[in-house]
Each structure stands twice: as C-alpha cells, then as structure tokens.
C-alpha cells in the first residue's frame, strides 16, 4: 500500500496512532479505544489519506468477545451490535436463541428486556462465534455450550457498574516471530491512561 501512496502523494509518512477512538466506526453503543495499533498514512498536505486497521474482522470479533464477557447488562443496542459483529441475520440469531424474530426485534428496539437465560445464551453464542471460524456458524447453541460450560459462572449481569460508562480498550498483541499486521491478536489493554 505504501508504494501506491508514493505514486499519488510523493513520499508518504506514516504514524501509529497512540489512541484511536473506534466507537464510531464500529457503531458500538459503548466506547472502544485502540492503543498503539492503528496506522495512518499522511499525505503531503498533512491530511490522513489512509487508515490501516490491522485485522479489522478480528477487531470486530475481539470487541464482541470482550463485551460478552463484561458483566454490564446487555441492552437493545448491545444486542444489535453483537448481531452485526457476528454477521447474523435476525432470523438466524432468533433461532439460535430460541426466540421468535418478532421478539428479537422488540429486544433490539428496547421495547423488551433480555431475560437472564436469553442473555446468557447470547453471551455464550457471542464468545463461541468470536472464538471460532465462520464455518462454525451452523453449529447449534447446545454444541457451543458443551465447550463453554462454566465460563460465565463468575459473571453476574448488572445494569451499571459504579455508574461508569462502559469502555473496552484493546491493543494489538504481537506474536513472537510473526507479522503483527496479519498474525497478531487483539487483546484487552489492562491499564487505560
């Protein structure tokens, strides 16, 4: 990509963004910050001509994964985000959760609230799909659950945690000997500055 930019804009400069706010681009109902992972290509005029997000599909899955493991109760916007992140049509997700598409629509609109059992099913499904390849999408929830027994035992969904807005902070974890752009992993950033 850099050689292409060089043709159009002269010698490009690149920079790693200290903190990239990905909330808007992910359409997430909570804050998502990416630390030292996103690269920007700067043109001669000083404007950003290109944004390089390593493994965007992996990022979407990682955010969904960490949201599913966060105890704050899932609301309709969270449900919409998770469905989008899992690439699931409403009918497919409704079937996996054992609810009607109409009920799922009411849940997403906020007209209805997720029952604890449905919420746990959704969290289980999200973690399972976020950890597996897209080929696993046809697996049933029961099949996923066999491998995820106990993972949510310590998570007690609650509406608010100290009234703080939900924030998910991630960074690109380098795997030794691998290209960080293509073979790294999105991991949670424990210390948020």
């Amino acid at each position, binding site marked *: *990509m850099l050689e*292409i930019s060089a*043709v*159009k804009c002269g010698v490009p400069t690149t920079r790693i963004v200290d903190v990239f706010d*990905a909330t*808007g*681009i*992910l*359409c*997430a109902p909570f804050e998502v910050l990416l630390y030292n992972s996103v690269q920007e290509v700067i*043109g001669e005029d000083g*404007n*950003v*001509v*290109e*944004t*390089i*997000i*390593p*493994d*965007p*599909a*992996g*990022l*979407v899955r990682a955010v969904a994964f960490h949201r599913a493991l966060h105890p704050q109760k899932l609301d309709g916007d969270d449900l*919409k*985000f998770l*469905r*989008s*992140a899992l*690439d*699931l*049509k*409403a009918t497919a997700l409704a079937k996996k959760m054992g609810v009607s598409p109409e009920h799922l629509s009411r849940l997403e609109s906020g007209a209805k609230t997720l029952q604890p059992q449905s919420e746990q099913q959704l969290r289980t499904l999200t973690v399972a799909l976020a950890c597996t390849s*897209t080929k696993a999408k046809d697996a049933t929830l029961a099949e996923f659950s066999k491998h995820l027994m106990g993972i949510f035992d310590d998570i007690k969904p609650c509406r608010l945690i100290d009234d703080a807005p939900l924030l998910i902070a991630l960074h690109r974890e380098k795997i030794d000997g691998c290209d960080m*752009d*293509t073979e790294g992993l999105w991991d949670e950033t424990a210390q948020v500055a």
Partner: protein
Amino acid sequence: MAANEAFETEFLREFANTYVSQITYAGGTWSDIDKIQDQGFLVGLADVLYVLKTGSVTTSEKRDSDGAFWEVEGMTCHDDNLVIRTQVWCDCYKVRVLNVAILGEKYA
C-alpha cells in the same frame, strides 16, 4: 451480471474472507459512516466487512496506475442497503475502502 462483474464479485468475496487484514480505509471513510449514523442509519465496520463478503460488484472502472475502482452493492445483516466504493489492486491483493453510502445516494 456481466462476466467481468461476476469475476470481480468472486474475487472480492474471496479477498474479504481470506485477506481481510489487507483491507484499508481512505481518510474520509469514517466521516461518511458518521454522517450515515447521524441520519439514523446505523452502519459500522462489521457491516462494511459483511457487504464486502456477500455483496456484488455492480460497476467497475479500470485505471492503469491506480488499479481499479469497484462499486459493491449489498445488504448488512440488519437488511440495510449499502453501496461501498473500493479501490482494488488485483495483482497485489489489496483493497481500499473509499466510501460507504446508502443505496441510491450520490457520493459526496
């Protein structure tokens, strides 16, 4: 669908499934997404990737030094119609997303 468009669609779908880390985004892409969200039409990175993986190339324009410009039409998993404008270099397997728009809207 013309033969070349079928090939381009197949290429893009395979690309989006296999070489996802090589998809980059032009500087203004996020402001376009924000604009769409302001209109109450929610679209995010997952939707863009979904349309690239499942949509179809509807128009293409070859530019020798800059690869080709393809427009991809598709639906998000929330059944919203999207058009995504991309710049593609088939020889080096790179795709840059230039613009995301609601179907039927003219590009800025």
